[in-house]
């Protein structure tokens, strides 16, 4: 074959089965990765993306045991005859959680880690660390501890730690998972830049397709149930229906074009909103669709929580986390709280729930000051669901876990039974009530934690990143569930980085920046306001650009129409009539 030297990774009829499992996780994988290529691997949770990546970087079979079939060659060498360390010189991996993969005490040590293990001595060690750090613009932070860095900076450190080893293949496992929208955009730009500078092949595993396509990719490999479903260019993939069949979210502008009846073909270059070519007929269709759909706002009843002049400083006295926050939440409202990492969003939620004690200001609940109530007393009115369900679950059985709060309060067992049943039914877990929690998926665990809060019958529930790390199917499942709770009267506040979530599900968004609220408005107004987007590190929705492209002047109103259209036509029709969805 020609250009054989350029094939870095080659899988032929490859399959893999974990020792602990009864059936294979991967089947018949045929894939070639060449030098200089940029490949996106997409697929729902459980489709085998991570397993495939572990096979390529050598964790399989050297750390996770199982049976391999077919062939997997790294630079022409069969991987099972190689070693994890040998492979690590060719394939560098940036793991999903840049926080947890930080090995060193400081930035410099973390970058140096691979070199240290390779016995690189002075003076090359310091020199190469400095060069790698400069490559990702983190040179000024060499002595900083990981805790002092922002999410984006941490990721840069992880990238430098891999680049320092001169690898030929760079794997990014869900690089956008913990980043705010603007930082995510920079991360994609950084990945593209690194690839151009080093000439390495890049494999990105991510289900946030629209965000990855901010910079072009050569191919998208779509995985489903352990098989490669498609391996084609982004333009081709976005033109077909494969994405939605596999439960991957397509870019919003594509959705809008489909609603308007525009035929999407590879020739129109739909991979990015910047490249897409729409002819006059297409634009006319979009304009007509816009004019045909109306927009409405549903009215809200009384005020539930009012916060006045809230101030909070952490014990150490150094960080003034919340400054003079005043905001109110109406009964039955679904609100998103957005902003950069460290803007004060989570702190705000914790102060409301009494986890932290405010240093000034007041919190009113139905007009009564609740500043003096304890965590436990506030929990009866306001429930708080942490981001990581594993941090909340302490019982073995689902039923016991959900009953825990009531048992601690000394509620009679007969009443507990009733309230737990209601909560489990609402959360779709009644059938599984006798299961051990450990048998559940991440999304189901999340529902268990929500159920355990619901039994306490709060009127308001605050969720920290309810959909972080979820694929589109689980995301939809959780969000539809929250919408249902909201329709039966629950006031819902979501702390989130996800612009889609905010746009589609929240009535309103409160934007935090550096401990202050800089905007409090309808989501479509916020996501089309350039000033706020910049300040809060958000990202403009592609719908806005689509509107401008089609000659619609009021982009904001177009976004509003789109959301309303989705809510009316696409979502579950009437969740209240549908009742418990168990």
């Amino acid at each position: 074959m020609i250009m054989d030297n350029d094939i870095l990774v080659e899988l032929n009829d490859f399959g893999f089965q974990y020792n602990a499992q009864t059936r294979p996780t991967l089947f018949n994988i045929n894939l070639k990765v060449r030098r200089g290529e940029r490949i996106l691997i997409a697929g729902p949770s459980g489709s085998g993306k991570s397993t495939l990546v572990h096979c390529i970087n050598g964790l399989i079979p050297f750390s996770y045991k199982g049976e391999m079939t077919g062939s997997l060659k790294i630079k022409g060498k069969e991987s099972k005859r190689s070693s994890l360390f040998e492979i690590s010189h060719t394939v560098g991996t940036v793991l999903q959680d840049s926080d947890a993969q930080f090995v060193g005490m400081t930035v410099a040590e973390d970058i140096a880690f691979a070199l240290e293990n390779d016995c690189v001595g002075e003076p090359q060690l310091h020199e190469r660390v400095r060069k790698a750090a400069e490559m990702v613009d983190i040179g000024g932070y060499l002595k900083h501890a990981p805790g002092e860095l922002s999410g984006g900076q941490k990721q840069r450190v992880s990238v430098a730690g891999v680049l320092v080893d001169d690898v030929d293949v760079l794997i990014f496992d869900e690089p956008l998972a913990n980043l705010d929208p603007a930082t995510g955009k920079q991360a994609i730009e950084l990945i593209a830049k690194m690839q151009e500078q080093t000439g390495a092949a890049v494999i990105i595993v991510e289900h946030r397709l629209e965000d990855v396509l901010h910079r072009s990719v050569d191919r998208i490999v779509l995985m489903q149930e352990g098989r490669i479903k498609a391996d084609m260019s982004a333009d081709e993939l976005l033109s077909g229906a494969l994405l939605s069949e596999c439960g991957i979210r397509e870019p919003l502008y594509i959705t809008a074009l489909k609603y308007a009846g525009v035929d999407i073909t590879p020739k129109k270059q739909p991979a990015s909103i910047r490249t897409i070519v729409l002819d006059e007929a297409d634009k006319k269709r979009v304009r007509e669709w816009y004019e045909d759909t109306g927009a409405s706002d549903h009215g809200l009843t009384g005020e539930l929580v009012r916060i006045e002049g809230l101030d909070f400083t952490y014990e150490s006295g150094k960080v003034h986390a919340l400054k003079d926050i005043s905001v109110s939440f109406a009964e039955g409202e679904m609100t998103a709280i957005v902003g950069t990492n460290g803007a004060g969003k989570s702190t705000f939620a914790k102060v409301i729930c009494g986890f932290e004690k405010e240093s000034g200001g007041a919190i009113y609940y139905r007009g009564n000051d609740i500043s003096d109530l304890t965590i436990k007393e506030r929990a009866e009115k306001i429930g708080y669901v942490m981001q990581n369900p594993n941090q909340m679950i302490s019982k073995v059985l689902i039923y016991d876990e959900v009953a825990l709060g009531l048992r601690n309060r000394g509620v009679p067992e007969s009443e507990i039974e009733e309230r737990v049943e209601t909560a489990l039914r609402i959360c779709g877990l009644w059938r599984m009530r006798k299961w051990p929690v450990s048998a559940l998926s991440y999304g189901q665990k999340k529902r268990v934690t929500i159920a355990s809060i619901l039994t306490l019958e709060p009127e308001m529930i605050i969720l920290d990143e309810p959909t972080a790390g979820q694929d589109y199917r689980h995301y939809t499942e959780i969000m539809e569930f929250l919408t249902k709770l909201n329709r039966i009267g629950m006031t819902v506040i979501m702390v989130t980085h996800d612009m889609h979530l905010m746009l589609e599900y929240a009535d309103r968004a409160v934007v935090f920046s550096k401990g202050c609220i800089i905007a409090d408005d309808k989501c479509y107004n916020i996501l089309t306001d350039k000033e706020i987007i910049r300040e809060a590190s958000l990202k403009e929705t592609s719908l806005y650009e689509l509107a401008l492209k089609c000659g619609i002047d009021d982009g904001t109103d177009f976004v509003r129409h789109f959301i309303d259209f989705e809510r009316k036509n696409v979502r579950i029709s009437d969740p209240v009539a549908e009742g418990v969805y168990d």
Partner: protein
Amino acid sequence: MTNLFNYIDRPSPIHSLTGATKFVCLMLWSFAAMSTYDTRMLIAMTVASIILFAVGRIHFKDVSFMFGFMVIFLVLNSICIYLFSPRHGTQIYGTCTLLFGMSGKYALTAEQLFYHFNYVLKFTATIPIVLLFVTTTNPSEFAASLNKIGVKYSIAYAVALALRYIPDIQRQYHEISQAGQARGIEMSKKASLINRLKAASGILIPLILTSMDRIEIISNAMELRGFGKNRKRTWYMARPFRAADHIAMVSCALLVAIALCLSVVNGGRYYNPFV
């Protein structure tokens, strides 16, 4: 929240010694202080340790929590010695000087009092040095120097990682306990000790589960970057031994020698002013 093991980066002559030097010195110093009951030497070492503490630019408030903890331990320990062996001093020093005209088993003697004084001195001579070691030793640099003095690097690195994760685990414990309190797990002083212990065990399970997740990630991250590949590795934070390191270690070795000499001169570990 108080961090128990906290490296405080405040440049000083003590900070600039290598971790291995400090570790060796700590061992020698403790051995000297524990082996002798010579009051003069213990007083000298106490004074020296306080001076060193100041040289290390560590403030009392940085270590007040640990200091308090150690004082309580010391007081309890002294009380126990007195309860179980009120005539220990008399046995050691061979005289019996009753004080305040008391009599009976628990009568206070000058010898017992002097014994306790020496006992406390041993700790006052050591505690500041232990605290100084903990607060002035950078965990990574410590790992590097442990490796240098012959400890396997995987063990040395495990020590450094453990030190690094202690603050993280403390923060997680705090978060988990707050979520637990919201669901009515009583952790405040209102609950009885037994109930609080029960509640704490409820927090332990999620803490262990989340820590296991992290251990898997970190060990993957380390292997992927070649940890364990060679029998040796280099250290970014490694520092060469310098004159000050040698001086420090020799001085501490001298202390041990003095302690041993004194026991010969005194004819035993105890300095006896009573005969």
